[in-house]
C-alpha cells in the first residue's frame, strides 16, 4: 500500500518535481491540488460516510484553501494547513449528518471488498489467511471506533496519515505533549482491547 504522504517541516516537501526548493510564493491553486489532492481525499474518505460525501467535502476543503491561499504564509506545513481545514470540514459534514460515531466503523466495513482489491491481498495468502486478516481489520476498526474522538483522531493522524507528533499537534490545535499523552492512552486502549493481536504469542503464532 502506498500512502505516499507529504511530510516535513515548513512548506512540506512535495513528492514530485523540484519542490524541495518551493517557497510559499510558488504555491498556486494548481500546485496545491496537484500535490495534495490525494492526501486530503484519503484523509476525508477515512472519516466521512460515503465516497460521494468524501468528494464533496474534499472539494469544500480545496474551495476554502484556494480562498485562503493569498493569506497563507507557510508558518505550518502545507499538509498540516490543509489537514487542519479538512478536519474542520469533516466535522461540519459529520455534524450535518449526525453520524459521527458510525462513519468510521460502518462505512469502512462496508467497503471491505474494495479494500481487498486495494491491498492486493489476493497476491499470496490463502483464503484462510485472507479471512483472518479481514477479521483482524474489522476488529481493529471496531476498537478504534470505540476510542474517544480525540484519541482516535490522534491515532489515525500519526499511524495512518503518518504525521509526526508535532504535526499531529498542529492539525489538532494541541500542544505536542498533550498530543503525545493522547496517543499513549489511545495505544494502551487499543492494546488492551485487541490483546489477541498484540501480545507476543499472538504475533509469533501468526494470527495476523
Amino acid at each position, binding site marked *: 500500500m502506498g500512502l505516499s504522504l507529504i511530510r516535513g517541516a515548513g512548506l512540506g516537501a512535495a513528492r514530485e518535481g523540484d519542490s524541495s526548493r518551493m517557497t510559499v510564493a510558488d504555491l498556486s491553486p494548481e500546485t496545491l491540488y496537484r500535490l495534495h*489532492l490525494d492526501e486530503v481525499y484519503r484523509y476525508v474518505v477515512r472519516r466521512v460516510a460515503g465516497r460521494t460525501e468524501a468528494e464533496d467535502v474534499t472539494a469544500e476543503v*480545496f474551495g476554502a484553501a484556494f480562498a485562503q491561499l493569498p493569506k497563507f504564509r507557510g508558518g505550518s506545513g502545507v499538509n498540516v494547513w490543509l489537514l487542519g481545514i479538512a478536519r474542520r470540514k469533516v466535522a461540519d459534514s459529520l455534524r450535518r449528518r449526525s453520524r459521527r460515531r458510525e462513519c468510521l466503523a460502518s462505512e469502512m466495513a462496508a467497503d471491505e471488498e474494495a479494500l481487498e482489491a*486495494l491491498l492486493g491481498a489476493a497476491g499470496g495468502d490463502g483464503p484462510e489467511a485472507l479471512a483472518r486478516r479481514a477479521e483482524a481489520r474489522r476488529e*481493529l476498526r471496531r476498537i478504534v471506533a470505540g476510542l474517544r474522538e480525540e484519541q482516535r483522531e490522534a491515532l*489515525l493522524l500519526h499511524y495512518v496519515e503518518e504525521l509526526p507528533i508535532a504535526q499531529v499537534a498542529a492539525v489538532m490545535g494541541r500542544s505536542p505533549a498533550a498530543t503525545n499523552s493522547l496517543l499513549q492512552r489511545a495505544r494502551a486502549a487499543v492494546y488492551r482491547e485487541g490483546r489477541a493481536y498484540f501480545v507476543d504469542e499472538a504475533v509469533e503464532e501468526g494470527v495476523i
Partner: protein
Amino acid sequence: MSEERNEEKLKEMLGEAYAAADAPDGLRDRVAAMANSIPVGPRPRRVLPPRLALVGALMLLVGGALAFRYLFNRPGETAIQLIPADALIVATLDTNPSPAQVPLYARIEKAMQNRGVAGKAEAAIGKLVEDSGIASTLRPYLGHNLALAILSTGGAPKEMFDGAVLLLELKDRAGAEAALKQRGRRAFEGSLTYYRLGKEPYCVTEFGPYLAITQKPALLGRIADVAESRVPSVATLREYQLARAELPEDANLMLFVSPAALSEVNEKSKTIGVNPLRHTQWMAASATLRDEGVQVDFRVPVNDPRVHGGPAPLDEQLLHKLPAGPYGIEAIAQPAWYWSSSEEKDAAELRKEMGELEKQSGLNLERDVLPGLQGDVVLAVYPAEGKEASVDGLVVFSDAHGADAALLAEKVRGAIERATQENGKPGIRFRSTPSATGAVWHLDGDTAKGLREAVHDAVGEGAQAASPYELVHATVGKAVLIASSQSMLDRAIAAWSGGARSVADDPSYPLVQTKSVAQAQWLLTVELHAILERLRPYLKKEMDKTDPEDLVRLFGGEGSALVVSGRFDGQLMKGTLFVPLEYERAVNLLSGPGW
C-alpha cells in the same frame, strides 16, 4: 521491546484497516476547475514587522469583511475605487466565485470541459479579436473581471458613450506593461503616460492592477485624479453605498445609475415634457449566479412627496386559492392604489377623457370602480383540461382588503348591457344561475353566438373549429372569477372555496416563496418547463441537430419557475427576477452544432 513491536504491528494493521484509494478522476477534474477559476495574481507581501502587522491586523478587523471583499475577492467591484464620484453609470463584472458559488462554478467548468467549450470559446474570442490591436496584444494578460464607467463629458446624449472608461483586471501586470512598451506608441496627458496601439482610437494605460481603456486621454487623467486621491471615487458616494447595501454581496454583475445621470436626464427631459424618473434618486441592479438559476435584483428609490407608503401586499392566502398547475400567473395588489397615487390623474386632458367615459358607461370611477379594485387582481393561464396544446385563461378580482369586486361586476354587467343596446334592441346580455358559493354568469345564447362569429372572422376557420372558449364568470362571496371555459371556472371555484388543489400544492411553490421579495405587491410566475414540455413534439421535429431534452429542461424541471416580484414601500422600489437555469443544459446548447 514488545512495545516497539506492538507499535509496528499497530501501524501495519491500521494502515491496512484504513487503506484508501487516491482521489477519483471526477474529483480531480472538479478541483482543477475550481483552481482554474481562481485568478492568478501576485501574492500580497508581508512588509511590516510583526508588531506593526498586529496593529494592521486589528485595523483590518475593523474594516473586516468589506476590506476582504474589496481587496481579494472582487476585482471588478474594487475597480470602482478608481472611478470618479461624478460618473453617470457604473457597471462591474466579478467572475470570481463567492464560497457559496464555488460548487456551481465547478459544475459549470465541468460541463464546459465535458463539452470542450472552453477551448472553443477561447478560439472564437481569439478569432474575434485578431484584428484588434488592443485585444490581441493585451488579452493574454487580462483577467475576467472588469468595471465600466460612463463619465460625464458635457456632450449631447448621442455622445454620451464618448465618456466610457473600461477598467480591466490585469492578471499579469508586468506582462501587460512590457507588451504596451514594446508594441504601443507612448503619449502623455499631463504627467500621465499612456499608449496607443495600431490605428485604434483607444488610449490605454495601467492603474495598479487595472488596465484602463478609453477614447479620450482626458478621461484617463480623471481616473488618475481618483487614483491619487485628488477627487473622491464613486465608492464614497452615499447613494452608491445605499445601492450596494441593497444588492447581494456576491452579485456577479452590478449596474449603478448615479444621481448625476438622473439629474442630466431630468434636465434634458424638460424639453420633452415627460420624465417618469423625475422622482428617482438613483437606480441599481445586479445579476447573481445561484445554484438553481440567475437572480436579478433591482432597486429604485423614489422621492415623491405626494406618495406616502405603497399598496398593501398581496394576500398571503392568494396562491392557496388559485387552482393548481398554471403555466403562469400575474398578480397585482390593490390596483386602485396606482390610480389614487398617480400624478397624471389630475391632468386636465385625462380628467376630460375620464369624464366622457363615465358619462357613456354610467359608472363613476371613484365611487363605483375603485372600491372593487382594492383587492388583488390575478391573470393566470392554465393548460386546458383534456385539450392537447390548448390553454385556458382565468382572471380573478379578489375580495382582499374589503374589496367588493362582486358589486363592481354587477355594475359593469349593467353598463355593458346598457352600452350595447341599439335602438331598443338588446345587445350583450348575461344570464345567471345560482351556485353553492354565489352565482355563475354566462353570456346569453345570442351573445355567445355573435362572439364566436366575431372570433371566427378575426382568427379564421381553424380557430372556429376548435372554438374552445366561452366567457363565464362567477361571484364567490365578494370575489369575482372570470374564466375562458366552464371547466376552468369550475376548477377556479373549487380552489377558491378550498375544495381543490391550489398553486400552493404545486412543486414550484417553495421556490416561488423563496425567490420572491417579502410582502410582494406584484408577482409573476411562469412555469417555463411546463410550457417547453408541452412544446416538446414541435421542438423534436424542428431541432434535428440539438437534443430537445436540453431545451425542454433548460429552465429546470418540475419545481422550477421563473419568478418576478416587487414591492414599493413609499420610498424604495425593490424587485427580483429569478430565471431558473440548468447550467449544464445551457452549456450543451451553446456548444451544440446549432451554434
